[in-house]
């Protein structure tokens, strides 16, 4: 059996495993949906500010909710990896003719599908609340892809490294709230033009997540801005170039 086929088998395993943990299933989707409804309702008036890009705040908030589903959501992959390392199953898999890379890739593929489904649920809720995706289904899919990839190269890598180092699912779970910081320090809830604090605007501009969220929001509200979309993918690629080799090296140093 070749490596891609092995990765698909392991992805399938990750997907089967997830719904068998009802707590994980519930708590990875419900908070995002609740936050979307609560924040959408609380800040609805923001959309009435002059110059705000849309008059439907739920529309503005939808790409944020996609990121809330994907970035903290990928943390569950780290929790599952820590559990596999803790109980020895990770190494059991490595007694078969496969490799660390394939085992990690299989887990990642499974989690990508899971996150994409979660993000799609969020967008469906947004549509149910009257939001429209300006770029239609292709734009929605692009949004989901960008959100999922950002999750993998940021919090996915952090949680995987923590799992490798600690083998402790609780430790990985404990850092999950940090993922929200990455999203909150963007124009997630308010457009940059309406933020008075220069310091905050600078922080937002420096936050890589902002450069992914911005084109996602354009896909939701206006259309394809290929320049911004390109920057978004470049940011993801740059983060990946840093994060993925660190993860591989971390694994090698911890288990060789």
């Amino acid at each position, binding site marked *: 059996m070749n490596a891609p086929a092995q990765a698909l*088998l392991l992805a399938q395993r990750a997907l089967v*495993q997830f719904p068998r943990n009802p707590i994980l299933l519930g708590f990875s989707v419900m908070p995002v949906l609740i936050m979307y409804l609560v924040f959408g309702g609380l800040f609805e008036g923001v959309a009435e500010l002059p110059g705000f890009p849309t008059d439907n705040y739920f529309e503005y908030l939808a790409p944020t909710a996609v990121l809330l589903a994907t970035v903290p959501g990928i943390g569950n992959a780290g929790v599952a990896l820590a*559990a596999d390392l803790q109980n*020895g*199953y*990770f190494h059991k898999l490595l*007694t*078969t*003719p496969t490799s660390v890379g394939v085992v990690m890739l299989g887990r990642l593929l499974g989690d990508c599908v899971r996150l994409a489904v979660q993000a799609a649920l969020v967008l469906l809720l947004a549509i149910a609340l009257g939001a429209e995706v300006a770029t239609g289904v292709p734009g929605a899919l692009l949004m989901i892809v960008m959100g999922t990839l950002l999750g993998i190269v940021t919090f996915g890598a952090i949680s995987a490294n923590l799992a490798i180092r600690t083998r402790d699912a609780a430790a990985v779970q404990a850092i999950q709230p940090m993922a929200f910081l990455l999203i909150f320090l963007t124009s997630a809830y308010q457009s940059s033009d309406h933020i008075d604090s220069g310091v905050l605007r600078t922080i937002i501009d420096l936050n890589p997540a902002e450069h992914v969220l911005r084109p996602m929001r354009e896909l939701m509200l206006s259309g394809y801005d290929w320049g911004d979309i390109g920057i978004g993918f470049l940011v993801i690629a740059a983060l990946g170039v840093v994060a993925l080799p660190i993860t591989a090296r971390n694994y090698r140093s911890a288990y*060789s």
Partner: protein
Amino acid sequence: MTNPSPVAATAPSPLDDLLARERTQPLERTSTLGDPIVLENLGKTYPDGTEAVRGISLRVAAGESFGILGPNGAGKSTTIGMLGTLVKPTAGRASVAGFDVVGRPTEVRRRIGFAMQQAGVDEFATPWELVVLQGRLHGLPKHEASARAGLLLGIMELADEADRRLATLSGGTKRRVDLAASLVHLPPVLFLDEPTEGLDPRSRSGIWDLLDRLRSRLGVTLVLTTHYMEEGDRLCERIAIIDRGTVVAEGAPAALKATVGRDATLEDVYLHYTGRAFEDTRMAA
């Protein structure tokens, strides 16, 4: 009036069925005609400076049952981990089934089954799913992996638990599932790291009987580590007693015991070669 049916008396057991399946999907046994397991000055020093294994040299013949005995912390798990390609040696070399464990790890893995000290199971899977996945990763077609999983779980007396989540099963049951998963591709070489650690005497005896049958019927080369001297005595044709990362004695259990005294036990052999009582070292570890 009703004599036992000759058909029933000779009806194939699950093990027979399993062996018949092996004949339909034969695995290349070894790449050379030499000993399937060779260690030459094998050593491992961990990054923190711990010298776990210090230059071990051993050979295990095809079909042999070989035990690595010693107290906790002696270097047994590191040694078997290196043979199973899970731990990278820092000195010397080792080959399994004719392949170097560092240079050709994938080829080694194709030919080994490895049940680790900590039964490595996916708590959210069922025994059946776990064994099938392991078989599929070894390249078995789905139907073949499924058939073998059913037979192996039957042999392990786990048919009733086959569809229950592993999280709900006892430690001993998980060990048997792990063993079934290690055997699904019917490997020519089987590594068992402390196979009966933590099991009650009845389960331990059950595993010993099973290993005996598997070895005699499948012709598997078996290497196991244990700190139960009785286990080494019962299962192994030859043993190596390992202490502080080096082999202090090697040979058939009876021959080793004879070098020490008439009614000597393997504990006495350990005391003779290390100058320390085996129980003391277990307690210290």
